[in-house]
């Protein structure tokens, strides 16, 4: 059977790369944690706890080994007493409940001894090329204590309390790629399991989750001399890893533009391909309907304090509810030609931005055969050189084609330069300050893309010459970085956040969400415009469930029904 052509164009970067849009995104099949779990399943990874030397208070050392077809990785966990006075999720913390290193291979006793000394110091430690990831985590005291006490009484914890938090521990930093002497990504990026972005970090988070689940069983057992219950498997699966994320993540998106382009282009290509399908089989419709219902329940269980996000969740619930209702009364809705495109168009003009993005995530789910292979192109390593033969007029044309969003901003208005980003003396972490009332603006970080484009464009217009950049830059060395950026990003439509990130209107949390969604984060719990808590791998299979047929069916997790 032939169909009229309906190749849906991919959504333009002028829509997708706006902050409002980034701040509304959800995890998809392409997200890095999803991809990791799929590989664990398809390559039959084996994860074992090879050492669990913890005392009755839960302090000591544990080691988890991950056997992949070609490599072995080990998470070395150090669990410590944490003085309540030192408990903080902020990056400036110097003490934590647990600290971790992901080791390349099987550590010797002397490796463990060395890492005990270095890992517990975190940013103050020094690491070797065998050390891949450094991390730390704190307990969620509310839930952790509740779970241990319940199990100690031979009872299961209250699923509602468990769902309201969603994790036993939350990481406050996950470092890799050469930080503090850790292995450079170039050392391991050619290994197939680690070629896609952030796989080594996601593996670490997954293993820390396993440790946190074993830790509560251990503590309950220790407190009642073996009369305790073990945490129910379904409840365990509903516990992910928490994470507290602040501004440290935001400059990354600006500093790795082609990588970001690859991520967003892959997602948009996937959506376009699904929307271009002329029909949907009953199986695919079944998957969609199942996930639609599950995502509604997921929204109902997404309980947070942030008023603005709460309102958005409520709106999405209404939108999904109407769609579920409509689909139940009109079975033709998804059996017409180009059902997914029609559905997308139907909701696009009436739903909230976040509701539409939730639908996008759902549309991709039934089609692993289309979507998953696009994940192969997500990585990128910088290997292009600046071409000084390009002329100023050629560069000007690229700016006017690709950077109109920046040229529309009026940087003569002080509010458009309200903020500056800098590295703080405390832990060398990115921060944001008010340009007009705080010190440090002379050390502003180089992520002011819109303003720099605006400045370059004005200079090019005013010089009104057509000369090679090699000549132009002799007189304008301060514009070298932005000339290079424009040239290198020509044709990479999704490379730039198309908003002014130093503007009064910028909410950094939108940048964070754009990146965290690609990690696979859910249950965003904004604590201000500057930082958020999230949950990773909630619903994901446990380490002894990775071979199950349904190992990839865990997005939009919901509280398990307990007998």
């Amino acid at each position, binding site marked *: 059977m032939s169909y009229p052509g309906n190749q849906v164009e991919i959504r333009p970067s002028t829509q997708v790369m706006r902050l409002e849009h980034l701040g509304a995104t959800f995890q998809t099949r392409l997200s890095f944690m999803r991809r990791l779990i799929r590989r664990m399943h398809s390559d039959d990874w084996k994860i074992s706890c090879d050492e669990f030397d913890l005392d009755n208070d839960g302090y000591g050392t544990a080691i988890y080994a991950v056997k992949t077809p070609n490599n072995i990785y080990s998470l070395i966990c150090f669990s410590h007493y944490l003085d309540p006075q030192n*408990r*903080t*999720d*902020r990056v400036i913390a110097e003490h934590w409940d647990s600290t971790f290193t992901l080791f390349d291979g099987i550590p010797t006793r002397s490796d463990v001894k060395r890492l005990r000394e270095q890992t517990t110091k975190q940013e103050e430690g*020094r690491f*070797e*090329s065998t050390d891949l990831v450094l991390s730390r985590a*704190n307990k*969620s*005291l*509310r839930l952790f204590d509740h779970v241990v006490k319940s199990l100690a009484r031979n009872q299961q914890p209250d699923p509602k309390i468990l769902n309201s938090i969603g994790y036993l521990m939350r990481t406050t930093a996950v470092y890799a*790629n*050469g*930080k503090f*002497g*850790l*292995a*450079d990504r*170039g*050392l391991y990026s*050619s290994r197939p399991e680690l070629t896609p972005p952030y796989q080594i970090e996601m593996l670490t988070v997954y293993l820390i989750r396993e440790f946190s689940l074993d830790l509560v069983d251990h503590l309950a057992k220790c407190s009642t001399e073996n009369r305790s219950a073990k945490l129910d498997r379904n409840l365990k699966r509903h516990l992910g890893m928490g994470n*507290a994320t*602040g*501004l440290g993540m935001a400059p990354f998106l600006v500093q790795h533009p082609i990588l970001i382009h690859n991520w967003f282009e892959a997602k948009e290509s996937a959506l376009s391909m699904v929307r271009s399908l002329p029909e949907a089989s009953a199986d695919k419709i079944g998957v969609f309907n199942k996930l639609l219902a599950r995502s509604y329940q997921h929204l109902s269980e997404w309980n947070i304090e942030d008023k603005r996000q709460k309102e958005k969740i409520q709106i999405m619930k209404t939108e999904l509810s109407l769609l579920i209702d409509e689909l139940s009364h009109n079975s033709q809705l998804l059996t017409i030609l180009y059902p997914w495109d029609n559905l997308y168009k139907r909701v696009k003009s009436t739903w909230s931005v976040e509701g539409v993005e939730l639908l996008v995530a759902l549309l991709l789910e039934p089609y692993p055969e289309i979507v998953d292979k696009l994940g192969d192109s997500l990585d990128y*390593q910088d*290997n292009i*050189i600046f071409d*000084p*033969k390009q002329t100023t007029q050629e560069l000007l044309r690229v700016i006017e084609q690709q950077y109109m969003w920046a040229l529309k901003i009026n940087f003569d208005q002080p509010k458009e330069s309200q903020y500056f980003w*800098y*590295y*703080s*003396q405390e832990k*060398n972490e990115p*921060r944001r*300050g*008010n340009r007009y*009332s*705080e*010190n*440090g603006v002379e*050390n502003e970080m180089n992520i002011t893309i819109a303003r720099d484009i605006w400045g370059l464009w004005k200079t090019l217009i005013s010089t009104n010459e057509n000369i*090679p*950049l*090699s000549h132009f*830059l*002799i*007189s304008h*060395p*301060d*514009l*070298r*970085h*932005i*000339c*290079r950026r424009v040239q290198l990003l020509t044709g990479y439509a999704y490379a730039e956040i198309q908003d002014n990130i130093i503007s009064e209107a910028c909410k950094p949390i939108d940048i964070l969400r754009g990146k965290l969604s690609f990690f696979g984060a859910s249950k965003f719990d904004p*604590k*201000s415009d*500057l*930082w958020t808590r999230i949950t990773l791998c909630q619903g994901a299979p446990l380490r002894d469930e990775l071979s199950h047929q349904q190992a990839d069916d865990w997005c939009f997790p919901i509280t398990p029904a307990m007998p």
Partner: protein
Amino acid sequence: MFSDYPGNALMRVSLNEIQTLIFKACISIGLPVGISQDASQTAGHVFSRHIGSIQPFADAIFQLDSNSSGPFDAPDAFNGIFRPITTSKALSSLYTTPTVCDQILVRNNNCNSHSSIALRNLDIPAVMIFGIMFITRYIGNDVCISWRIEQNTSINGLCSNGNLIFNRGSFEELYTITNKSVSLDVPNYNSALNHFNTDNVTSSETLDVDSSTWYLLSEYSERLLVPSSDTSRMTGAGAGTVDTD
């Protein structure tokens, strides 16, 4: 010079740390962002091939910061002659290398002739030669850029396909040379710039640097750090957090 500082213990660092440190140290002394990026890329290239040392970069940063070196005179640069603006200063290799590399890259015009680039009183020639070595990996086609350090030295060699070959002299000698004139012989060539295959570049597992030089460069990069204030503490990410939940 940094080499005068005591202590020569080696410490292991990652390639990422080297590139980040060189970039930040360059920014901290006021070099433009694009030029700092070039220095960082070059450092990454030479270290990933086990042929580099951070000493020349540290020396070049020190020269600029101490006002012993400075930018080039722009009008002469258009003609391939790079000299310091004032005779009281040497020519900064960090500042000049990107422009020299640009001039090499624009000679890609298929004319069958050679041309020369002259650098007068260059502060740290090793930095310039590293920069040229870096860009030749993109030129490909075995194009050779010959270089010669003048004024009572006999060190000379060529850069090609991302490599550095000495006709006379050695790395050790090259590192000790300061404030000399350098001449480059650049063939015209005709080839598209390569997007080289990163699979051929092996990152090193062990990159050892002199710890005293490392810590001094770190001091430069730390100039970029902004101390906390009451305002930043009250409004920063994580402020007001309840950590016991």
